[in-house]
């Protein structure tokens, strides 16, 4: 990576730190990175080190940062994960139902039995193929 470009990458990563940290160490950290790059240290490893440092900086509780702020941030993150998971879960049966006719093409012939519970759940008839003692649904 060319030197000016490498320094720009590191400076971009330094913006991930909290403002308080940047005010305190920002200039020095950029200068240190430039010196290390000049010495031949790969810019990627410097950027990675700063990125990990920024993550630690945000996750470490500080006296100035209220515990409730950290708790709220974690709650919001957990909620967004929950909502995404819920959306994915609700989309999966719908996708399965719409792609069912195509899915039957790869099934091997076997003893076909309708499964009433599955039929109630997704609104389409479903078959289970029994092969060597295992139930495989198509």
């Amino acid at each position: 990576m060319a030197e000016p470009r490498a320094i720009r990458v590191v400076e971009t990563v330094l913006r991930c730190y909290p403002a308080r940290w940047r005010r305190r160490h920002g200039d020095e950290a950029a200068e240190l990175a430039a010196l290390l790059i000049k010495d031949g240290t790969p810019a990627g490893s410097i950027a990675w080190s700063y990125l990990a440092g920024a993550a630690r900086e945000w996750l470490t509780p500080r006296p100035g940062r209220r515990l409730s702020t950290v708790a709220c941030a974690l709650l919001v993150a957990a909620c967004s994960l929950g909502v995404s998971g819920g959306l994915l879960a609700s989309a999966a049966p719908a996708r399965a139902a719409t792609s069912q006719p195509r899915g039957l093409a790869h099934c091997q012939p076997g003893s076909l039995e309708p499964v009433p519970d599955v039929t109630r759940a997704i609104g389409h008839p479903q078959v289970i193929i029994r092969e060597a003692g295992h139930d495989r649904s198509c």
Partner: protein
Amino acid sequence: MAVGKRDGKAGQDVLRRIGEASVLILISLADEPRHGYALIQDIKDLADVELGPGTLYGALDRLERLGLIESLPAEDRRHPYRITAPGAAALRAHLDSLERVSAAGRLRLQLGGI
């Protein structure tokens, strides 16, 4: 020879839980104040450890919060750091503790005939 929490000395060793990087920084600052780049170079020479800059600043912040080091007025854009009296005491206690563990290890190797 019992080494550990039972003899009560481990409780005085505040550096036990703050990681190797912090100990190396304190050792590097033990003889004279240094700024970030000089610290990285010195630690590379004395311990053959390449400290990442992110790790360095994390450790410097932690040590400063604990009052074990202090930053001196900036020279150009660089802040030199200096070890404080509590920092020197903590480092001495930690090195004593390491020496006890090291001696016990050597003794056990000798007793085991390995």
